[in-house]
């Protein structure tokens, strides 16, 4: 095993002519690598990511609660069903969720605008939902998923895998001791290796959502203390007026290919003509809270630093063109 005969080589599993097969290791030409992307369901957002999320790659959506992570995931489940000409993959999806319950109502609401132009009569038949309660749960699920990916139950191949969220899986099981952090870190790499293998083998898009934690102490320079080690295009990330960073630390950051940060800020806009609230003691009359949402590219091997504002409406998540001064 350590030193096999020089002329022998292991096989690896890959999609050959659309079929999952064992092939001997041999070099490929980059010109033949899959380049498909899954649209985010909005042309403005798609421009931010140069077309969509790439197959064979793990993209993370990080943000605090209520920034739109799950909403975007639902949008992706439906986008996957569209044909490539409409930015989709003509594929079924697997949605693994660790937060409960699965947002079925929100998904149904998204189906209404989708249905008329849909190529697939019953979209929900091609979306497979599985719960995961712990990291070990997720690992055994991913192993079982190999069969699902190799022989999909519906007519369409499964080419979108969503884990929503990775952070929730690690919330309670681990203490802050070096031993536990090491154990947790090992699991990150095991999970990521499995996800990447499946992304590659089945030419699938993998999306993982992550939460954020408050940044404590330290500065941004090399070797500082706290969790403020700079990762990616931004020295600091902000949401709801607080400085935050994606959860699960540097280890997990090493496990993903692309990191997209979602944030929100509530701006108080003074509105002179609004009604006075007689119930409250609030002296500041006539204010309206406007939620601004932003999507930022923290790091990606193929994308430059860029950001985009977006809104969440009942029809879904849509990017907003930057206003020119």
């Amino acid at each position, binding site marked *: *095993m*350590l*030193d*096999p005969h*020089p002329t*022998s080589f*292991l096989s*690896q*599993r890959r999609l050959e002519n659309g079929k999952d097969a064992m092939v001997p*290791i041999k*070099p*490929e*030409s*980059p*010109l033949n*690598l899959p*380049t498909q992307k899954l649209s985010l369901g909005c042309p*403005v957002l798609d*421009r*931010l990511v140069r077309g969509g999320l790439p197959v*064979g*790659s793990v993209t993370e959506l990080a943000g605090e609660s209520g920034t739109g992570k799950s909403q975007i995931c639902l949008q992706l489940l439906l986008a996957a069903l569209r044909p490539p000409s409409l930015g989709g993959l003509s594929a079924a999806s697997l949605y693994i969720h660790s937060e409960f319950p699965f947002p079925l109502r929100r998904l149904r609401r998204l189906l209404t605008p989708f249905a008329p132009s849909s190529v697939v009569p019953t979209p929900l038949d091609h979306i497979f939902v599985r719960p995961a309660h712990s990291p070990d749960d997720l690992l055994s699920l991913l192993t079982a998923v190999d069969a699902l990916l190799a022989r999909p139950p519906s007519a369409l191949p499964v080419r979108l895998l969503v884990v929503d969220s990775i952070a929730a899986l690690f919330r309670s099981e681990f203490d802050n001791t070096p031993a536990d952090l090491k*154990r947790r*870190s*090992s*699991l990150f*790499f*095991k999970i990521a*290796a499995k996800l*990447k*293998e499946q992304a*590659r083998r089945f030419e699938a898009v993998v999306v993982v959502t992550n939460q954020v934690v408050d940044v404590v102490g330290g500065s*941004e*320079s*090399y*070797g500082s*203390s*706290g969790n403020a*080690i*700079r*990762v*990616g*295009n931004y*020295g600091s990330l902000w949401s709801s007026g607080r400085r935050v960073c994606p959860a699960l630390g*540097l*280890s997990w*950051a*090493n496990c993903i290919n692309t*990191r997209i940060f979602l944030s929100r800020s509530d701006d108080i806009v003074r509105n002179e003509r609004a009604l006075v609230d007689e119930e409250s003691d609030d002296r500041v009359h006539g204010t309206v809270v406007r939620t601004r949402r932003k999507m930022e590219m*923290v*790091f990606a*091997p193929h994308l*430059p*630093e*860029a*950001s*985009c504002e977006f809104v969440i409406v009942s029809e879904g998540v849509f*990017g907003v*063109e*930057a206003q020119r001064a």
Partner: protein
Amino acid sequence: MLSEEQMQKRITTGCDDLDTILGGGIHCKEVTEVGGVPGIGKTQLGIQLAVNVQIPVEYGGLGGKAVYIDTEGSFMVERAYQVAEGCIMDTLDKFGHHRKVILDCQEQMQPNSFLANIFYFRICSYTEQIAVINYLQKFLAEQKDVKIIIIDSVTFHFRQDFDDLALRTRVLCGMSLKLMELTKTYNLAVVLLNQVTTKFTEGSFQLTLALGDSWSHACTNRVILYWNGNERHAYIDKSPSLRSASAPFSVTSKGIRNATSQCKRVRMM
């Protein structure tokens, strides 16, 4: 027949300052480890080197080919295409070629030709990683044009739980010895991209290269990429011949280039 001069050629990184601290560029016959946090530019540098090794001899390059071992799925074809295009444009620009000459270079100096000269391996486990390195021994005997092997990244698949840590150390050392052998036998460069982790030493968290304890002796040179404020920097962490020095660099749409006082920002249109 390789001339003495050609044998000592360095592979340019695309950034003059970075080349300078590297003693002219990445050395053949040596293993260079490059580490840094996610997003600092490791893969960008890997792709840049896979392209730059191909700069024809008449333009001051090695005219070689590259082996790119992708363990993480970070290699993006569209990015490699951009980098190849940028390299070709800047090389022809540098040599002050007129448009006619550029059209004459139709065949050789095309981004797709550059992509075709990268032998790409995507591996999904540590066993596949070892198998590919063993496979290379036979492969390189047949493909004499390969002048660089890039592994992106070298430790990812070893950072999972290993039941037998002694086995992991043996495997890593065996692997690095094999790579060192390959550099000498085939007179090529090996560049190992590595992740970083935090280690609590001397009262604070320090960034260190992943699995450094297991095999830090195996590389000839070690370069760390890091953030200095808003600017990307590289410094020589270990080398038998290079002085400890640091240099700024930038990642542009064309690839790795000299640092600019104003970092290139692309805003959403």
